[in-house]
């Protein structure tokens, strides 16, 4: 028996619907069809009247969720692709994210964003939006990299009293499998040291964790011991765990699939440079996708985003500095 990342997301939603009558799911094709990615497969049947198809109206989908949350519900909304959340952007960043600050009324809305590149998906079905949402005060941004985290973090997202942008990576949907669902979990807000090492730290999250682990393994025969930190959530960032790791290794490489300008990798480097300057034995480095829209052709796509190979090369360079 094994369970995929995608099944874990479906199971977490089923569990949330079972546990809490306030939970409902709203989004395009999420009803009887089970969602464009099948993340809500069978849920409409299992929970009649609580898994609702919406019109193609991202703005109104999120607006409705905010209203329902004000009235005490715990909506989960699915943006069919993270890229389309730009159409609902206003309601996310100006309505959901400001409600608590302005009125003291919490806004427990979970916005699921199937995000990130997969081969052949092109400029409008591949985007990484975590940086954009993390920039806005009032939002929590989760980026699970494992089957276990996909499950436990989604349950926590629904339980949290604040709007959560839940970035689930489409590349991991079928690629990642676990033996079983976790019974306990590290709380959101804590990063995890996935692989210990003494020579350098790679800080990453979501699908890039697996590329980074592959890169770390490739460097082992050369005698390098690379530590890999999975941020798990990019807002908040667990700066303490990152800093402690850099204190041990003295070298930092940040890897993100998002575009290079600003963003999570830049934020990590800013924090380590300003708060942990003395811990560094070499200038901190980062690796992101190229500063162009995400290309369609697999040849171009493989060169556009960081891969294990590119991370290995960047790590080697940093280890020699």
């Amino acid at each position, binding site marked *: 028996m094994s369970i995929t990342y995608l099944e874990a997301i479906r199971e977490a939603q089923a569990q949330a619907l079972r546990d809490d009558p306030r939970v409902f799911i709203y989004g395009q094709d999420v009803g009887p069809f089970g969602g464009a990615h099948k993340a809500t497969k069978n849920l409409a049947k299992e929970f009649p009247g609580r898994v609702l198809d919406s019109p193609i109206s991202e703005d109104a989908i999120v607006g409705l969720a*905010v209203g329902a949350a004000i009235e005490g519900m715990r*909506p989960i909304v699915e943006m069919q692709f993270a890229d389309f959340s730009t159409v609902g952007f206003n309601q996310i960043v100006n309505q959901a994210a400001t409600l*608590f600050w302005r009125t003291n009324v919490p806004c427990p809305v979970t916005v699921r964003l199937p995000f990130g590149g997969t081969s052949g998906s092109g400029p409008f079905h591949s985007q990484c939006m975590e940086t954009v949402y993390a920039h806005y005060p009032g939002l929590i941004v989760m980026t699970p990299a494992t089957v276990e985290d996909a499950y436990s973090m989604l349950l926590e997202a629904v339980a949290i009293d*604040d709007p959560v942008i839940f970035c689930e990576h489409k590349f991991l949907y079928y690629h990642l499998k676990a033996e079983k669902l976790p019974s306990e979990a590290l709380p959101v807000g804590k990063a995890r040291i996935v692989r210990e090492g003494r020579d350098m730290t790679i800080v990453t999250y979501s699908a890039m964790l697996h590329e980074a682990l592959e890169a770390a393994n490739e460097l082992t025969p050369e005698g390098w011991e690379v530590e890999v930190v999975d941020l798990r959530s990019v807002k908040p960032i667990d700066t303490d765990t990152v800093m402690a790791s850099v204190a041990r290794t003295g070298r930092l490489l940040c890897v993100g699939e998002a575009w290079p300008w600003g963003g999570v990798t830049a934020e990590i480097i800013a924090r380590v440079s300003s708060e942990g300057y003395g811990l560094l034995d070499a200038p901190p480095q980062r690796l992101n996708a190229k500063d162009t829209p995400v290309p369609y052709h697999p040849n171009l796509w493989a060169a556009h985003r960081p891969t294990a190979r590119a991370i290995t090369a960047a790590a080697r360079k940093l280890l020699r500095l």
Partner: protein
Amino acid sequence: MLQTVLEPQTAEKAALFRETYLAAYRFMLLARLLDDKFAALWRSGRIHGGVFLGRGQEALSAATGISLKKGDVFAPLIRDAAGRLAFGETVLDAARTYLGSARGPMGGRDGNVHRGKPKEGYLPMISHLGAMISVVNGILLARRFKNHAGTVGAASIGDGATSTGAFHEALNQAAVEKLPLVLVVANNHYAYSTPISRQFACRDLADKAAGYGVEVDSMDGTDLNACLETVGQAVDRARAGRGPQMVVATLLRLCGHGEHDDAGYIDPELKKSPVGRDCQKVAEDYLIRQKWADPATLATWRTEAVHKIEEAIAQVQREPGPDPFTEEWRAISTQRLNEGHE
């Protein structure tokens, strides 16, 4: 026989209408005087940011607020001082938000027309037009989930907001879900400075409703009588389960977009036309014609309203503003997940 059965009912109805009309008029009066006070405070530099008046739209606004019951939902817009008061907002809370009192519902974190109490069904607008409609939908859908029937949600918008994607998405959404939404459209002929000829090309804004399968009615927005009847009936239809309702009022904004705006762009011909009538004057004439009030009574009501406002402003001016040193700089409710950057 029929006559004897009907007559007492009709008389009762007439008395009720008179009572509603008088109450609505007094909210219009209070709102007009409150707006004037805010404008005066703004001119003397006592208000930070903008001041946005509802002059010319009080009849529609008061009719909307008064047609709703306790437990209903109201998402007012910038020209809704009258409707807010009729829905239950206090003059104190309005003054606290404009003057930035720490004791106001927004505690100085937001100001002027951006005020409300979401848990009481009174939504604080964001600036992005049309964005509050789907939030009302969400509250109404949640009530359906909770088997809490019989409440209505009203949202106010202007002619400008009917051009937004948010308006389209939310009205369509309400129609698909058959929600008891009442969308109150004030066609005041200008969105800031843009005339309706540059805003939409349909014959009448009411035409838009058909495209969504939404019932619609129109009214002369300068006439409190028409507003009470049309908005009241739309609220009744929504409450009775007839699905979303749209009402369109034709009127003219008798002030600038905000007090910073001299509104020099408004067509003088429009001001002279029936659309440019002052709804408050129209209502006063009606009160006197009906002998529901005489000029002395109107003067007394005005004095009472002025006193109420002056008292509230005096109290708020003694209240502290927000303190940046004790302010909790946290945008999320989950304390442990707050990043807490300085």
